[in-house]
Structures are given as structure tokens and as C-alpha cells.
């Protein structure tokens, strides 16, 4: 990723840093060395940087994977996708049969009914697994859950007259077992093995997440919406400092539940606590919801199926205040927007904030910006903002967006990587793991191919080249985290962070199913199969 030296044969490493990259002859001048040839037949590229992920994926694997697509767990085991509700039920029946405690809950994760032609799962499906045991499955979106009758009984909700938009009812007037939204998921979740804080990540979960990183060639990953309570910060700092912890975590403080002043004050405190492998001091704001969930805020003409506009999670004044305080205190802010109206709000508030607190090189980043149009990208560029686009989205939800949420024209321009690059907007691309699987090379492939899972190409114009995509998952992402001086390319002085691949990544096809040997992080070598 060094434009001056795109390919080379050797890299010299000392004390976790790159002494130099070049030919053996060029590097010999540095002095005595040992030659490590284990990667002679492999490809070393800069360690991949995941600029939008959540370490909670490490926790989710405690539950049983029920997704449509194959997915690899922290142990390296590939779990085959389940392509129908019957398959999901069969898998969980097998698990159920192996359980010794008759009262223990059974929990799954990763499903999405849109892959079942939107045939909704009901409690009757899950009752086939067990009538006595509380059972539930979390959807891939993490925003919906399906439970069985027993779980509903335990929550006291298996009765007539339940009246809540998040609890759909069957023709019998009883809940179907689908639970939409955190307000209804929390009270039932506890009965099926999802603790109230299931979005948080404990030490074991962080370890599991780090193992996933090694398998995917990731050497720096974000935990992009952490509550960052004191004890969990301390645990994370200690864990990441362990000699064999293989990844650098960049943790951002989530804004919910804090006033702007509290939030920025806390971020400033956290900035003082940053360590080499647990970087802290940045803020994450969520402005609106999701497009496929119809909770994103859209400009005219709104949702394709005429669904009402979505929800704000922050008021304009609060957003402005956070930006202003943060610019003043040099705290970097990342803001989630999915709808274009939400993106406009960020742009308007940033403009005002910058007039009041001018700052150069703030690199505030818009996360997702899925529906941003060309005019918005021009404003993004002029305001010095970066974007991190959700390139994985067209694979997993592209057909949904085309048919239902935004319609063909806007679906084709969602996650507009080409437009971003044309307007010189610093760009990264991401998975938002666990929403989609961690795997920057696959994300890169998505930005290049823009294929939906039904095989259609969605938005030919916005496709980018392999080189541009590889740039986005290394130095591009590093730039949005202000780490581009330390990581993202193989050059003298930078961290010895590498992804070790079995094949050349220059071919688009290679990216889709790239075999990864492992990583080198701060000069330490991690073989995926040993992790």
C-alpha cells in the first residue's frame, strides 16, 4: 500500500516495528539479521483494518449459529448455512437432544427471514424443538428475536390482549413469538439465555473476537459503540496488553444516556487511558436507525413502499453541541447515519460547529452513509469529513433494498464508493460485525463486484477497482482512525502489522474466498490454525 513501492520481496522487523521494506540486499545494510523464510511462498500485505465492528461478535458464538450463509467461528470451524426454517429447526433439535439440563434455555443467532422469502418464523416452528425448554433465536440484525411458547409463558406474555407494535399477533390473538426491538426483547431475552447486557462484551468475548481477527487477517479492529464503563475498560486494557493478544482494538464511547458535556468529558478522560493495543478517547453517535428496518431518516421521496419516516436518536441541538465541544477538545467523533436526511443533519451541524470551533484535520467520520448522494459527498469533502461505507450491504440486503425499502434507482447508488473517491472523500469500507461477518477481504470484494446474494450486480457505476478496495481496508480505514502514520502500509517506521495470505489478492475472484494463513501484529506472529 505504499505507492512509492507497491511490491517488494522482504521486510525487516525489529521490536514490533518495520525497520524497512525492500530487497534483501537493500535491507542487509541495517546490520545483523535472522532470515525468517516461513512466508516465502505466501503474500504479506499490510494488516487489515476493520473500521466498523463490534467486539460483541465474540460473545455471540456462545449461542448456536442459525444463519443462511456459511460462517466461520473463532475456532476456525465453518458452520454451514441453513437455507430454510426446517433446517434451522433440525439443527436445534439435534442440539436440544444433547442437552442434559431440562430447564436450560436454548439460544440461536444469525437468522434473517428475508432469505426465507420473508416467511416469518413463529413459536410453532420453535415449539417443534421443545415444548418445555425456553428457546429463542436472535436475528442477524440483532434487533429482532424469535421465541417459542414456553419463553413467552415465562415472560408472562402468552395471553390475549398483548398490544404492542413489537409483538405481532397470530390469528388466534396470541403473540407469534416474533419480538421486534430492544424494548420487547430485553424482558424475554433473559429467559432464553441473552443477558440484558448482551450487546456488551466480556473478557472471554474479547478474546474470541481477537481470534476471529487473526483468521480474517485483521490486525486493528474497532469496537464501535462501547459503553466503556470503568471496570470493563480496565479489563480490556489489561487483556489487550497480554503478550499473546493478537489485535489492536480501537474503542469508541457510545453517546446514549449522556448529555453532550458528560460525553465529551468522559471521552477526554478515556483519551488519557489509551494504551498501545486499546486505543480510547473517541466518540460514537447514532443519529438514526436502519434502512431495511425502516427506522432510518430519509429525505423525499422517502421509503419505496411508503413506510413512514424513521426515528431520530439524537436532537439537532445535541448533535451540534457534541461536535462543537469535541472539535474544541480535539476528540474525534464518528456518527452513524443510514438515511440521507440523517446525513444532511450531520452536514448541517458540522458546518455550524466548524464555524464556531474551526479545526483542521478533524477527520470526523460518517459511518454507513448508505444513501448519501453526490451533492452530499461534495459537502462531505468540503467539510473535511471521512466516510466508512457499508459495502457488505448490497450482498446481504441488496435485493431487499431494490424491491422494498428504497427502490431500484437508489439501491443502485447505495454505499457509493466510486462517488466518494471521485470527490476525494477519504473512504473506508466495513462489515459492522456481527451484523455481517468480519472479513475485510470479502468486504473489499463486495465493493468491487457489488453483487447481491441472488447474483445481480447492483450499481455498476459505483464499483471500484481491487486496488482501491484494498486501499480502503488498509490505509483508508487507518486514516479514519487517525492511525495512518502507524499502520496501513508496509514502510519503514510503521508497526509490523501484516496479513499473511495464501494467494495474490490482486484478482477480484481471489478476494471472495481468500485463504488467510494468519497475521503478524506488532511483530508477533499468529498462525490462524494455532490461535
Amino acid at each position, binding site marked *: 500500500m505504499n505507492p512509492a513501492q507497491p511490491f517488494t520481496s522482504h521486510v525487516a522487523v525489529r521490536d514490533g516495528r518495520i525497520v524497512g521494506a525492500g530487497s534483501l540486499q537493500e535491507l542487509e545494510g541495517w546490520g545483523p539479521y535472522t532470515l525468517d523464510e516461513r512466508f516465502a511462498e505466501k503474500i504479506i500485505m499490510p494488516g487489515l483494518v476493520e473500521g466498523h465492528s463490534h467486539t460483541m461478535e465474540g460473545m455471540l458464538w456462545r449461542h448456536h449459529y442459525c444463519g443462511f450463509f456459511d460462517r466461520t467461528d473463532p475456532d476456525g470451524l465453518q458452520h454451514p448455512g441453513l437455507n430454510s426454517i426446517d433446517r434451522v429447526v433440525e439443527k436445534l433439535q439435534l442440539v436440544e437432544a444433547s442437552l442434559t439440563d431440562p430447564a436450560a434455555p436454548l439460544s440461536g443467532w444469525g437468522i434473517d427471514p428475508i432469505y426465507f422469502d420473508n416467511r416469518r418464523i413463529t413459536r410453532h416452528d420453535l415449539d417443534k424443538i421443545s415444548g418445555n425448554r425456553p428457546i429463542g433465536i436472535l436475528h442477524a440484525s440483532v434487533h429482532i428475536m424469535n421465541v417459542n411458547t414456553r419463553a413467552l409463558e415465562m415472560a*408472562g*406474555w402468552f395471553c390475549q390482549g*398483548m*398490544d*404492542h*407494535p413489537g*409483538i405481532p399477533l397470530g390469528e388466534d390473538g396470541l403473540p407469534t413469538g416474533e419480538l421486534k426491538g*430492544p*424494548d*420487547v426483547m*430485553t*424482558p424475554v431475552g433473559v429467559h432464553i439465555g441473552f443477558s*440484558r447486557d448482551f450487546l456488551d462484551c466480556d473478557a472471554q468475548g474479547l478474546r474470541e473476537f481477537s481470534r476471529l481477527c487473526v483468521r480474517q487477517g485483521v490486525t486493528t479492529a474497532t469496537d464501535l459503540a462501547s459503553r466503556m464503563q470503568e471496570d470493563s475498560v480496565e479489563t480490556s486494557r489489561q487483556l489487550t496488553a497480554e503478550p499473546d493478544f493478537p489485535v489492536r482494538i480501537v474503542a469508541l464511547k457510545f453517546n*446514549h*444516556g*449522556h*448529555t453532550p*458535556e*458528560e460525553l465529551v468529558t468522559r471521552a477526554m478522560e478515556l483519551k488519557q487511558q489509551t494504551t498501545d493495543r486499546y486505543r480510547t478517547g473517541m466518540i460514537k453517535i447514532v443519529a438514526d436507525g436502519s434502512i431495511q428496518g425502516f427506522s432510518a*431518516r430519509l429525505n423525499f421521496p422517502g421509503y419505496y413502499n411508503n413506510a413512514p*419516516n424513521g*426515528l*431520530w*436518536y*439524537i*436532537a*439537532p*441541538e*445535541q448533535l451540534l453541541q457534541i461536535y462543537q465541544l469535541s472539535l474544541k477538545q480535539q476528540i474525534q467523533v464518528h456518527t452513524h447515519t443510514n438515511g440521507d*436526511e440523517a446525513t*444532511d*443533519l450531520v452536514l448541517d451541524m458540522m458546518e455550524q460547529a466548524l464555524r464556531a470551533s474551526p479545526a483542521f484535520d478533524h477527520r470526523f467520520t460518517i459511518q454507513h452513509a448508505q444513501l448519501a448522494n453526490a451533492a452530499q459527498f461534495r459537502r462531505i469533502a468540503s467539510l473535511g469529513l471521512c466516510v466508512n461505507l457499508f459495502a457488505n450491504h448490497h450482498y446481504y440486503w441488496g435485493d431487499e433494498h431494490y424491491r422494498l425499502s428504497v427502490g431500484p434507482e437508489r439501491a443502485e447508488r447505495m454505499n457509493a464508493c466510486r462517488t466518494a473517491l471521485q470527490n476525494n472523500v477519504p473512504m473506508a469500507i466495513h462489515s459492522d460485525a456481527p451484523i455481517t461477518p468480519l472479513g475485510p477481504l470479502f468486504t473489499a470484494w463486495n465493493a468491487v463486484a457489488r453483487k447481491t446474494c441472488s447474483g445481480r450486480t447492483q450499481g455498476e457505476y459505483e464499483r471500484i477497482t481491487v486496488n482501491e478496495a484494498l486501499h480502503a481496508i488498509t490505509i483508508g480505514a487507518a486514516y479514519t482512525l487517525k492511525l495512518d502514520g502507524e499502520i496501513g502500509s508496509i514502510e519503514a517506521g510503521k508497526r509490523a502489522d501484516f496479513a499473511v495470505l495464501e494467494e495474490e489478492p490482486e484478482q477480484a475472484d481471489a478476494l471472495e474466498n481468500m485463504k488467510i494463513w494468519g497475521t503478524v501484529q506488532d511483530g508477533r506472529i499468529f498462525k490462524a490454525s494455532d490461535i
Partner: protein
Amino acid sequence: MDEYSRQVTYDQIPVTVVGGYLGAGKTTLINTILHQANNYRLTVLVNDFGELPIDAALIRAIDGNVMSLTGGCICCSYGNDLSAALMDILAEENLPDHLIIETSGVALPDAVANNLSLFNRVRLHNILVLADVETVCVQARDRYVGDTIDRQLRSAYLVLLNKTDLVTAESLENTQRWLKQKYPQQRQLQCQYAHIPLHVILDIHLPDSIASPERSQSQPIQTTETATGKSKHDTSVFNAFSVRIAGICDLAALLEILRDPASGLLRAKGYVASAPHTHALLQVVGSRATAIPLADAPPPDLQGR
């Protein structure tokens, strides 16, 4: 300070949802409520403790996100997770007499109210939406939050037009007219510094000093007559009175009268006999009037009041 009698009857805890955009005065209202609490055990759920200017003298202890106040009141910040906070409160041994939930400036109070139906230990009593009389008209046209404010106002049982001291009488009238036109079913109330007597917004009986026998109309009302309890609506003083309804009452007719915005009725509570040996509890909270059948007859001194 007046003494309020403790909550009678059903064991569901009444909940008042307090909504409204930023700067409308929600926090001031919460503070007002806590200062008037007296013997009442109130639990208040707030989005964040941030700007809650609670008198240091009132605070007994702070433990994480729970602030214990003198007199048994509790203030709890629920951050992002209202369901979890409700679960915690309902798991406690000592339950509050009344629960107040302050929502964030962009939250939809009706969505929050919906969540209460998930817990059978609580029931929705009131949705109060505050509006800053100086700015609400403009905010309702804001390109970003206009539709959110509209939904907030639409969902209110009672709209509190706050900060009337900051506008001229004419401006106030214009705003009131605009509100009436857009939301004809809504009840409005004006106030300054969010100062409102508790009995208007919470589910408590009128203090005896207000609803005293000397002030009540003593003529019994027959079934076929309509009750004509129109209260005069003064901007700074409420008219409160109590009415005795003897005999059997035509509930449907009575409810229709109570629901009519022209009555100016903001709050009412009482017991009527809807049929021989059948009693109902009538509640009027802003624009909502409901009659709940009672299993047992209320005490004789409350019957027909």
C-alpha cells in the same frame, strides 16, 4: 404544602410519561414534581441525570444510576434501556406509588407508553407533553424534527404550554389557537417554570382543602340529566370542584360529555354507579376519559363522587 391521600384501589402502579422537545421544560417539571412529592413515593425515570437540578438537600444517596431522595422518592437514569430499568424497579420490594418517565427530546411518548403494556404491574395514567410556547410553532415546521414534534403533540393526553411568562398575551393566544386547530382533541394547560399542581398530572385524589364539602355542588344529578360541570379556565388558577352523582348514571353519555374538549376539563376522578350494584371508576386525564368497572363497591363516602 397540601397533604395528598395515598393511592387507593387497584395495585397497578400508575405511570405518567413526560415528553416534549428539548428546552420545553421537562427537567424543570420533574424537579417541580419531586419538590411537591411530600408523602408520595415517586420513582422518576430520566434519560440522564445531566441537568436535573435537584436540591442537594433532597438527595440522600447516589448509587450508580439510582439517586435516592428524602421521603422515599427515587430518581433513576435509564440511559438507553427503559425495559431493563422498569424490570429493576418492579423487582424491588418497596414499589412506588407513582412512576414518572421522562423521555428524551426526540423520543415519541406514545411509543414509550406502548412499552408499559408489556408489564402488567403498571398502567399508563397520563401522557404529558410540554411545549415551549415561545418556540413550538417554529419547531413544528423544522425540516428535521417537525414530524417528531407533531407526533409528540398528537400523542399527548395533556399539553403543557410552558414559559408563558416569556411571551406577550397576543403571542400566547396565537399559539393556543394554532394548537387547537391542529390538535382539536388535545387539552392544553399553560404554566410558567413548569409549575403545575401534582393532582392535575398524577393519579391522586384532590387534596381535601380543594375539594371540600362546602365547595361542592350538593344537588343530586338524575340519570337523564347531563352533568354541567364546566370549569372556568383561568390561566393561573384552576377551578376544582367535586360533584355528587346520586343514583344510576348513564356512563356512555357521561363519558361523551367528559371527552368534549369544550368542557375544558383537565382532570377528574370519581366513582359512579353504572347499574344496580355495579360501580365504575371514572378517570379523566386530559383528552382521555375512561370508565373501569370495579369488582367491589367503593366505600360509601366515595360513592357517586
